[in-house]
């Protein structure tokens, strides 16, 4: 670990403290305004007519009966939208391997998944809009379906897009060198196939858009439940053919995102078009059926991995194949590669393996498009690799924790075979710590005792490295050639209070608290003197939004830089006023004091009064405001999840007993918020491992459009948790901060799956799919018994 970069040592009070969230009272009192809480005068309500069929030519759309319904103001179909936009969404990345995919804003000649929008009804109420939607009659001509990504690659598969021959959005290969030779010479090769089930992020608040076009000002205000208001404005400006200055995008209170709201959806363009055509505000609030069938799905990949191992259990090489199920379109603007490419490229994890190769495909199917969902790609990649590592441990009779420690990299910065530079971590130490927390050795004894009673306890331990701080450098390193711009402004107001604005977006992560902690410390002011504002393209400075564990680093870093500028100006002014050299001054608790002369001081408010109203006393200081940009280097958090389960071998039911987790995200802004992020991700991991699945039948019909079918974990399924921290500040980022928030979902599904396999190790069970319904677990046990004659 490098020693010259431990700014935590010099950061005083607020950073690192369990500061209660300043935004909570408004939420707790029910006063925060989410999208559907906003009502504008003269507002209309929209409902979408969506495809009931998975893949068909649209022969005719008859809106006559719907149009005649009292209260219906307008009905728009593809032609209306095409005439009022610059074109469809075209998702592309500047890489030769990747085919651009075109997504119409409303389907015109063809639908490609159940739930695809075909028309929009605008009416005086949502109730009437839905009445009218039910009256639209559409004739379809069936085109046959692809419902499995591997089938989609076959020669006789139905083709989804004429301009994407073979249904494959991208075929990408990576090879670090001598992989095949190492496999040929290796004493042991272990292989496994894993099919991670299709899921959806399903934040409790769905998507939603309100657009209000003011024809007098030729100005469009858009409220969208989005994780990226500024970037949405940039993208929409292109689609709507409007200057960004004529558009304001506001993300109101956002009821969760988890990645799904970091995409731009057709509805976000269609509703503004409707408002522009009608010169009235129009609202669309997604309902749960739409959210489950038509927003974005995630994570489904069919994967294979080979691991070459020597006689001592040292991993020699990894060779993987990842076939992602993209759904019917490439999600805009990120592409469907967010799953299979990230699943593949994190294959090294904490393991010191120099020979790595992988192949990635992203295949079009007649399903809802797949997009980012917390720990995008990585959840699947880790399920595959770490469940195979547990299989290897059992086959070689090595304790799975020991096998991981044996192959673990050191704590110092490390460059992987895939070219990522880890900025230092507690890779082995975190594993040891989590084992202490769960009492690993004692649990193994308990496991042995319980087995004698016919009870099956299992332990799964999954360490991870999480790529964070998605800026230009992280994105490019991980195969997404894009440039990002993120900034923060810091302004000391005349009374000495501080306004901070950022281009990221808080939808539950508590940024307005944790970023205020950063600003307060950097300026030397009281936390209560700072307000952080985000989520509004007119009032907050530009940024790409919040996703991929980036905000603490990009906004934290931008704020540190801007606040340092402002602090310097405060000190310059105070130096003039107090007639001392600014270098002899320090700021703390919103007061500037002279080192060694405690009697001589000024408050920040007094300095600010001079800056605003002091006339010539200002001297060289023009403003107490600064806007700074920060595009961080790659940073990587690490951590480990331990899951303890008990499996009922007669019913296949898995009872979650306990989770323990260690998170090392470098300099901690607010441990309470960090723990909240970890806990939430672990719960989602229970969902992925055991409960949640977006299911299509073989005809392409969607079978899980209700929460009776798509199963969120409740307080009864999510177990108790024990959460702890290690701190290895980044040696490259501002303040040593690393991003966090996704690691829990990188590691928890495989921790649970491995715990189940561990519980069932007397039966010789291997697990290769999620979710594990009781029926699946029982089938595994029975198959293993049939194979080897029982225990």
């Amino acid at each position: 670990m490098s020693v010259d970069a431990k700014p935590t040592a010099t950061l005083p009070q607020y950073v690192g403290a369990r500061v209660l969230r300043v935004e909570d009272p408004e939420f707790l009192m029910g006063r925060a305004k989410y999208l559907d809480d906003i009502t504008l005068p003269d507002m209309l309500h929209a409902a979408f007519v969506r495809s009931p069929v998975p893949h068909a030519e649209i022969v005719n759309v008859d809106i006559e009966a719907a149009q005649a319904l009292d209260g219906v103001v307008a009905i728009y179909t593809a032609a209306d939208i095409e005439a009022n936009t610059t074109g469809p969404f075209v998702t592309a990345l500047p890489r030769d391997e990747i085919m651009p995919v075109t997504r119409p804003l409303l389907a015109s000649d063809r639908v490609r998944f159940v739930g695809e929008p075909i028309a929009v009804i605008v009416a005086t109420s949502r109730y009437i809009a839905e009445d009218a939607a039910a009256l639209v009659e559409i004739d379809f001509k069936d085109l046959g379906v692809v419902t499995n990504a591997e089938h989609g690659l076959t020669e006789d598969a139905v083709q989804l897009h004429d301009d994407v021959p073979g249904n494959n959005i991208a075929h990408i290969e990576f090879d670090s060198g001598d992989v095949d030779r190492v496999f040929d010479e290796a004493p042991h090769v272990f292989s496994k196939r894993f099919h991670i089930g299709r899921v959806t992020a399903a934040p409790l608040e769905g998507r939603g858009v309100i657009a209000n076009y003011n024809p007098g000002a030729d100005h469009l205000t858009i409220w969208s439940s989005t994780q990226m208001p500024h970037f949405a404005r940039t993208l929409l400006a292109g689609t709507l053919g409007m200057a960004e200055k004529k558009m304001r995008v506001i993300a109101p209170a956002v009821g969760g995102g988890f990645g799904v709201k970091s995409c731009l959806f057709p509805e976000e363009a269609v509703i503004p078009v409707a408002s522009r055509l009608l010169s009235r505000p129009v609202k669309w609030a997604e309902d749960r059926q739409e959210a489950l069938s038509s927003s974005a799905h995630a994570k489904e990949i069919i994967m294979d991995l080979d691991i070459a191992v020597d006689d001592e259990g040292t991993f020699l090489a990894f060779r993987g194949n990842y076939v992602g199920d993209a759904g019917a379109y490439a999600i805009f603007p990120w592409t469907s590669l967010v799953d299979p490419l990230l699943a593949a490229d994190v294959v090294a994890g904490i393991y010191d393996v120099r020979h790595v190769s992988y192949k990635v495909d992203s295949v079009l199917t007649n399903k809802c498009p797949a997009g980012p969902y917390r720990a995008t790609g990585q959840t699947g990649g880790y399920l595959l690799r770490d469940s195979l590592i547990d299989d290897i441990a059992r086959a070689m009779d090595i304790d799975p924790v020991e096998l991981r420690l044996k192959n673990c990299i050191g704590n110092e910065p490390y460059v992987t075979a895939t070219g990522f530079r880890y900025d230092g971590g507690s890779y082995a130490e975190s594993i040891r710590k989590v084992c202490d927390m769960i009492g690993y050795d004692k649990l193994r004894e308990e496991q042995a005792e319980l087995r004698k009673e016919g009870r099956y306890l299992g332990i799964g331990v999954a360490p991870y490295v999480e790529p964070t701080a998605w800026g230009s450098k992280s994105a490019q390193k991980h195969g997404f050639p894009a440039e990002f711009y993120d900034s923060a402004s810091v302004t000391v107001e005349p009374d000495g209070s501080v306004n901070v604005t950022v281009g990221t977006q808080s939808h539950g992560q508590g940024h307005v608290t944790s970023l205020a902690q950063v600003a307060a410390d950097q300026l030397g002011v009281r936390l209560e003197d700072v307000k952080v504002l985000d989520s509004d393209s007119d009032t907050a400075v530009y940024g790409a939004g919040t996703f991929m564990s980036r905000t603490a680093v990009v906004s934290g870093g931008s704020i540190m830089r801007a606040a340092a500028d402002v602090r310097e100006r405060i000190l310059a002014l105070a130096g003039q006023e107090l007639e001392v050299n600014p270098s002899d001054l320090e700021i703390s608790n919103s007061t500037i004091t002279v080192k060694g002369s405690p009697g001589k001081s000024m408050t920040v408010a007094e300095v600010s009064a001079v800056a605003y109203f002091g006339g010539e006393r200002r001297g060289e200081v023009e403003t107490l405001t600064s806007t700074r940009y920060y595009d961080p280097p790659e940073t990587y958090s690490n951590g480990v999840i331990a899951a303890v389960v008990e499996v009922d071998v007669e019913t296949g039911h898995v009872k979650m007993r306990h989770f323990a987790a260690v998170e090392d995200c470098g300099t901690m802004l607010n441990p309470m918020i960090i723990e909240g992020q970890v806990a939430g991700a672990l719960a989602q991991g229970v969902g992925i491992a055991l409960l949640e699945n977006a299911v299509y039948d073989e005809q392409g019909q969607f079978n899980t459009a209700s929460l009776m079918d798509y199963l969120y974990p409740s307080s009864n399924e999510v177990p108790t948790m024990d959460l702890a921290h290690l701190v290895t500040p980044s040696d490259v980022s501002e303040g040593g901060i690393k991003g966090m928030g996704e690691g829990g979902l990188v590691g928890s599904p495989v921790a649970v799956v491995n715990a189940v396999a561990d519980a069932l190790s007397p039966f010789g069970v291997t697990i290769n799919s999620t979710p594990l319904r009781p029926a699946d677990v029982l089938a595994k046990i029975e198959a293993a018994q049939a194979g080897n004659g029982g225990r």
Partner: protein
Amino acid sequence: MSVQETSTDAQDDLVVQVRVNGESRRGFAEPRTLLSDFLRHELGLTGTHVGCEHGVCGACTVLIDGEPVRSCLMFAVQAGGKEIETVEGLAKGAEMHPIQQAFQENHALQCAFCTPGFLMTVSALLDTNPDPSEDEIREYLSGNVCRCTGYVGIVAAVQSAAKKLRDQGGTADER
């Protein structure tokens, strides 16, 4: 039969009179208007959230005559004459209810979309069971879904709120 005094025409608005958070409120509703929509869009009480509209997620939970109820599974007209409590009624001015305080202190909310439903459910729980065990809390709250917190903070907040309320000798309702 009240068919005469209501309307026989499905689309006509009816007058609905309820007591919400101790105040008498009137508004218009079609027969099919869900209570959740009536509270939110007719009475402007948008603290009650709508997460699924089929009774699974619990975000729209309010108290009706003291019992927790899904407001998305009732028609507004059915609430006529009832006593409804929503999240807006918990705090006294700027002073949060002990349950709300406990939620803040235990980081029991993140995006907070589920929070009002949880608060009302917890209020009902602590009214009937002032000292619930962790198992009882998890069982009682299992009809409310939180996608953010993993329930860790929520369970801790309920334990803390229960203690606060016991210490001050009041119930969740009359502290």
